[in-house]
């Protein structure tokens, strides 16, 4: 079966985001069927059979997650759609919401029918003003056309969808951090257990799904679990949006089957490394993933293959760095981000992210010591797996891998009095005496 694009097929056409355009191309048919013809349990079984894996970063099987929600509960159940796309190098959900908002809404209807949810919240990243407007217009339109609200699409099912704009915190993309923020609290992850499926939003059972995950649902119902499972590798099938940024000729979002090779993605789809330069490093799954050296890039872009290569698919934000990149500066850039975004709740992350940034900064301005490379590794070891959420891991993975895979850059910065960019800006600097900038 040839690969058919489901997210990006029409994005270059005029009015592709409109309801009439969406319906003309078969939109809301699967939602209608799910509301009228499908039993909730069959929907969950189908999604399990399709082996749809979460597209937010962790890759948890979506149907299994739905199955954790208690069937007999007096409490209301909620769907919290994670549209707080804040992983550096990732911009796929934004594309769906801007160009194809009704696809997301249709996915939401199917999910809510399957789990028995009557209120869905979409938590959208604050900076996505355009996407939020588009999505709100789509929601309003869906309400006025009877797609949402009472008696969705002529069924006896009621579904309300509320769009909530975040304030731009990375940590609010973590599922429980997002729930805290949605509840009006400080955006901090919560202790697990209890897991959101049992005790989530407002203390009620909650499904938390990523935008792209939900947008897969109409297609799964359309072609069936079996056919869907044959797209890409068996363990993590399906169409996938890959975001390629950095030093390539044609950065952008590419819809390809899961399991495409990283080289093909960069060289064929993204136009190759820019300016005819050589590849130096790739972070394959958003900035939280372990970095790959150029010689490690013969790998397939799916969950299992990347895990085997010692990194992760994550959010599929592929960040490409060419041979001119100084990895000391790359480390500093990434650590500055995590230091800024750590919520400050857990000790190892609160203190560790700041420490890593300070070390990276010191090396970059020529005050580094040879033992700092091992210190970075040890600090990372002490952060991983010791916190409530995965932000500490997300900071430690790139730090530890950058330092250990590109040791020569660090040795050069320590010996030469700073990173090349620093030396260029401060030609008289001999290191050590430089003032901080």
């Amino acid at each position: 079966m040839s690969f058919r694009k489901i997210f990006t097929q029409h994005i270059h056409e005029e009015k592709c985001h409109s309801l009439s355009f969406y319906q003309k191309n078969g939109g809301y048919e699967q939602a209608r069927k799910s509301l009228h013809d499908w039993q909730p349990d069959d929907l969950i079984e189908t999604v399990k059979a399709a082996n749809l894996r979460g597209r937010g970063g962790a890759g948890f099987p979506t149907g299994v997650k739905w199955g954790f929600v208690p069937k007999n509960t007096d409490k209301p159940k909620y769907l919290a759609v994670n549209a707080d796309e804040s992983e550096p190098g990732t911009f796929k959900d934004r594309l769906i919401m801007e160009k194809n908002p009704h696809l997301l809404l249709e996915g939401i209807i199917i999910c809510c029918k399957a789990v028995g949810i009557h209120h869905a919240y979409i938590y959208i990243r604050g900076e996505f003003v355009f996407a939020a407007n588009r999505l709100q217009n789509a929601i309003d339109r869906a309400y006025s056309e009877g797609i949402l609200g009472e008696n969705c699409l002529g069924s006896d099912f009621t579904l309300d969808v509320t769009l909530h704009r975040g304030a731009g915190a990375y940590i609010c993309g973590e599922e429980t951090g997002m729930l805290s923020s949605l509840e009006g609290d400080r955006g901090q992850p919560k202790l697990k257990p209890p897991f959101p499926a049992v005790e989530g939003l407002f203390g009620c059972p909650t499904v938390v799904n990523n935008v792209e995950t939900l947008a897969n649902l109409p297609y799964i119902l359309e072609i069936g679990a079996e056919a869907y499972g044959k797209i890409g590798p068996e363990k993590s099938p399906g169409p996938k949006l890959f975001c390629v940024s950095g030093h390539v000729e044609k950065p952008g979002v590419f819809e390809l089957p899961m399991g495409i090779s990283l080289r093909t993605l960069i060289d064929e789809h993204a136009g190759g490394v820019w300016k005819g330069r050589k590849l130096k490093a790739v972070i394959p799954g958003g900035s939280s993933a372990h970095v790959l050296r150029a010689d490690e890039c013969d790998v397939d872009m799916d969950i299992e293959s990347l895990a085997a290569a010692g990194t992760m698919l994550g959010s599929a934000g592929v960040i490409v760095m060419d041979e001119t990149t100084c990895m000391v500066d790359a480390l500093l850039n990434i650590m500055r981000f995590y230091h800024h975004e750590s919520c400050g709740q857990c000790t190892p992350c609160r203190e560790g992210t700041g420490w890593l940034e300070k070390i990276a900064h010191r090396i970059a301005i020529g005050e580094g010591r040879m033992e700092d490379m091992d210190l970075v590794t040890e600090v990372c070891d002490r952060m991983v797996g010791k916190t409530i959420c995965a932000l500490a891991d997300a900071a430690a993975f790139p730090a530890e891998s950058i330092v250990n895979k590109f040791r020569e850059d660090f040795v050069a910065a320590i010996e030469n009095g700073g990173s090349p960019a620093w030396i260029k800006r401060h030609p008289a600097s001999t290191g050590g005496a430089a003032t901080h900038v």
Partner: protein
Amino acid sequence: MSDTSNELISWNLNGEVVQNESGMTIMEAAKAHGIEIPCFCYHPGLSIAGNCRICMVESNRSPKPIISCSERIAEGLEIQTDSEKAVDARDSVMEFQLINHPLDCPVCDKAGECVLQDHSYEHGPDRSRFVEDKNIRHTKELGPTIDIWGNRCIVCTRCVRFCDEISGTSELCVVERGDRSVVDVFPGIPIDNAMAGNTVDICPVGALISTDFKYEARVWNMDRTTSVCGGCSRGCNVEVEALDGFVKRLMPRENLDVNDWWMCDHGRYGWRHLYADSRQVTAQTTEGSVLPAEASKALQQTLESSSSTGFLVDPFMTCEELHLVKQLADSMTGSRVAGWLPADGTEESFPGGFTISAAKYPNRKGVEEIFGADVFGSAASTLLNDIASGSVDTVVAFVGGHGFDGAGAEWNAALSSAKNRVVFTTQQGAWSEGAHLVLPATAPLEKEGVWINEDNRAQRVRSCRSLTDQNFPSELVILQEVQAHMELRSRSLSAAGVFRELSESSSAFEGHSHSSLGDHGTPLSQKPAAVGSEGGES
């Protein structure tokens, strides 16, 4: 506090199979077996935050170390608290906690009772690998009694949770993120509630500092007395901490039947009266001062020259003092006893279950138990009438407590009109001026004995031995000396001895003793098991 049921769970702690009630957290259950797992953010009176991570232990159920303050024991769970992995996790947290901490223990008021300091000795590195500049966070006033030294804050959020859950006032919050996080108040809304002082106690570091205690003493130099607050009839259990005879601060003492872990600020800061300029510190007659050793003789002579005596007792007196007054009154024909009560304040209750009583005195129940329920009612009006009519010519008044208003306007006027008056008073005032004999009284924190709180719980109070207290014999001593002079008593007893007399003569106190009351008190109705009473004849 976790929900526990009686079902026993078998689990494995450091290689040994142990049993605990289901529902307990690993930390609680380990503690029951003598293994103390360190913690910063955990407090038994607050919700679980799980953010400090120091309590991580190794589990057979998880590849990562787990936090023992929130995870519960389960059948077959195997926990290692001292394995390499657990120790490394703990050491990691200590290293992280200390990198931005100023380590200013020499000038920090918390030093000596600081959880961070304690854990640092046990688990911390002896030198730092951190060569960077430390973060600077704000040092500012959070409210009238509390300052924050932000650099010391480890963001455990105990204080924030306290204000959310116990006082229900929610003044505190964490501002900023990451290692810039620090506790603060909302602009223009200081922390100013009647329980605010507890946030300083539960701060595991020296971030929250009581302005009342700041720079007053090093905590290891102070003498601690296990006692009870006399500020209201709740009777919160406290530790009185004094340096060289001067009280420096009061700290709440855990008692889940009375005050949990808390006390109110009225009680906490309500000890300044001990050192007031108007404090009565010597005995005086209208002719001049009386030596401490001669005070009881002077009192005896006054009593013996009196034709009818009225005793006016107050609800600050201990049951022992009241018992001695009763013995005296019973021995003197035509004498009568009444009591006075300070005016009621306002009752304050808090969402966490803590209540400040409106009755601003500690031992009304004790007075009523010993002298009868009408001691503050009809007996008081009778005594007032008798003083006015002159049928009582001598009044012995006990004007204790922490107030500066004597026994209240009505009694103060009545006392002044009495023919002869003996006043035991803590403060000088119109009621003591011109008295036949004025004797210094012990203030609430200086007494030895038993008070009975509003729930009929008998609790031991102990003297903090403030300077005033050391300079003059207490009522307990003087009253016994008077009894000795009057040949009612052959030898003087300690407070415990007087209480034994009381328990032998009163059915309400029967069976109780100072030792059986212990540090946490006992309801008066709950008789302790008799010790050795079934022994054979000797």
